[in-house]
């Protein structure tokens, strides 16, 4: 079964760890994209601690996606801890399939381990160049290495190529129609 990585003020406790054999997924697969829902006001240090715990399950180049509503928008400084940083040029979310959603309604912020390279931005490349760049980078991965990139849209033609190469991947579509895709070369 699938596993949902959740950090929530309403459900205290450490975030779920990475996939395990008991849930039918590969043992040892890192979490490249982890979603943290429902940022709520409260003790910023408690929230930061939870995010910190979520980051513990994250691959060194992985991305943590934090969702918040405009009412409970997390203060920017809350993210600036010693262990993680915000990915620059984060697309503000709104539901791209729901016109009523606007940038002020919802927001996704992307966090990474401090010092991790930001996701490679392939959005400004015409098809099929994002696919080509992604496959180039994936081909150069060392065992245990991972690659995360932001593509202009859901990469339907990339996913079967990753499967054919035996590279596990994770995908998350963002509000600007782009998609974050992380892949990992097994040890």
């Amino acid at each position: 079964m699938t596993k949902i990585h959740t950090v929530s003020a309403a459900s205290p406790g450490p975030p779920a760890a990475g996939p395990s054999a008991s849930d039918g997924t590969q043992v040892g697969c890192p979490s490249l994209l982890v979603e943290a829902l429902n940022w709520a006001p409260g003790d910023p240090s408690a929230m930061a601690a939870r995010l910190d715990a979520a980051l513990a399950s994250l691959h060194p180049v992985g991305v943590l996606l934090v969702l918040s509503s405009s009412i409970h928008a997390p203060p920017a400084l809350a993210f600036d801890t010693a262990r993680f940083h915000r990915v620059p040029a984060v697309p503000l979310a709104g539901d791209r399939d729901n016109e009523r959603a606007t940038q002020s309604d919802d927001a996704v912020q992307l966090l990474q381990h401090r010092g991790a390279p930001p996701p490679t931005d392939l959005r400004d490349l015409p098809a099929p160049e994002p696919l080509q760049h992604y496959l180039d980078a994936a081909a150069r991965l060392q065992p245990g290495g991972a690659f995360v990139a932001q593509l202009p849209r859901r990469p339907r033609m990339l996913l079967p190529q990753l499967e054919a190469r035996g590279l596990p991947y994770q995908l998350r579509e963002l509000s600007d129609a782009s998609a974050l895709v992380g892949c990992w070369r097994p040890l």
Partner: protein
Amino acid sequence: MSFGGQPAGLSLAQAPPLSVPLTFFLTAPCFLCLAGLWVLWHGELLFLHPAVPATLVLTHLGTLGVLTMTMCGALYQMLPVVVARPVPNIRLAHLVHLLLTTGGACLLCALQLREPALFGTATGLLLGWLLLFLWPMARALGPGRSADQLADQPSDLPTAIPMPLRMPGAPPALSATAQGTLRGMRLSLLALAAMATAGLCLALLAGGMLRGAVAPSLLPWHIALARAPLLPWHIALALVAWVGGLITAVSWQVVPMFYLTPEIPPAHRRRLLHLAAAALLLPTLTLLTAAMGQFAGALSPTHALWIAALPGAFGVWLYNPWLLHRAVVARRRKLPDASLGFWRLGIACAPICLLCGAAAILHPDPRLSLAAGWLCIWGWAGTIVLGMLHRIVPFLVWFHRCSPLIGAVKVPSARQLLPDTRTRQAYWLHALTLLLGLAAIATGNGALARLTGLGLLSTGVRVGVSLARVARYRPPDPQSTP
């Protein structure tokens, strides 16, 4: 806001084999060459009146041989990739191609020779094409789950790491743009079914195999099957609802994808879908009204049919081109791209099609009808189709043959497979041919007409050679590469 990630996309088995779209795409330039030879042979005769048999042949070389041929191949390719709906029984596509090619050739001979047996054969072959093409398409496009939605199920794939899945209020698996394209494709395929049925009836009428009326006992009304209202219905549905509808729906996907333009806003897409539905429904209702003898008024049924097609024509020749022009101007990165020239030219021709079409309704000068047809088939739709061929064929060849080898051997990029210089040559040849054709129509000059034929032939050869070279490309064997 919703979180939704699906672990799997298409499997490679769901994507159509490269041979399926390529067969259609490589046949289209052959018909373009035939059109050139036809114009070279008949010269100015083709530019006298749209109802001249040789002109009808030229028209169908363009509509069946170039436009429909390419659009069938594109639908086989795009359904799985863009809207995540694999076409069932994909191997039938080769038979569909054969039936379209032979049926189209038979129809061309029948139109020229006026031989009843040829009309009968053409009708049979094209009916086979229509059924074998539409049935799998209807199954793929019908209500059901897309590959993305199926991917929400627990996957057996050992490589897919499950991501957090759908939360309450999650968006549908397809993006709004893809859903708009899906609806547009459904409408255009309905239009194809209606348009082709009308065309087959016209062929049977021309061959003398269909007379009188559809059995009155089966219907509450007596529907007269007359050529007069059927012909404008066939033309309106073919150019506006089928070709226009599909170009419009597909442009929402391919223009942002290939040229990095902003997406067409959803509100505009919705209005255009309504206009596409009107392009199908209004002429059909007018035809039914006319056929039941209920039509009364100062307008003839033919004129009423043309007027009924106007809302749809406004959508495909004015509204969508304006949106596309706006999007192209606002490109995020203005990279030089020769195939974009085709889109620009096609977009520029679209409003002139509308003007010429409207003028042809108001004024009986046959040159206006000829100019409208020429601009519509070769100027607007033909130009866009040629541009897409230059973009899609290298893309597909690269995807199927090169991308699996990335990391194993050095492979060229899709752009290197078809250099811009060749695309630019095709573009200029085609643009010159369009102008020559318009001049030939305006003047009736034989030399200009034959130059137009030469232009069509040169464009066809240039496009065909370019695409064939791309299709022949084989990457180096990883085993033999050090």
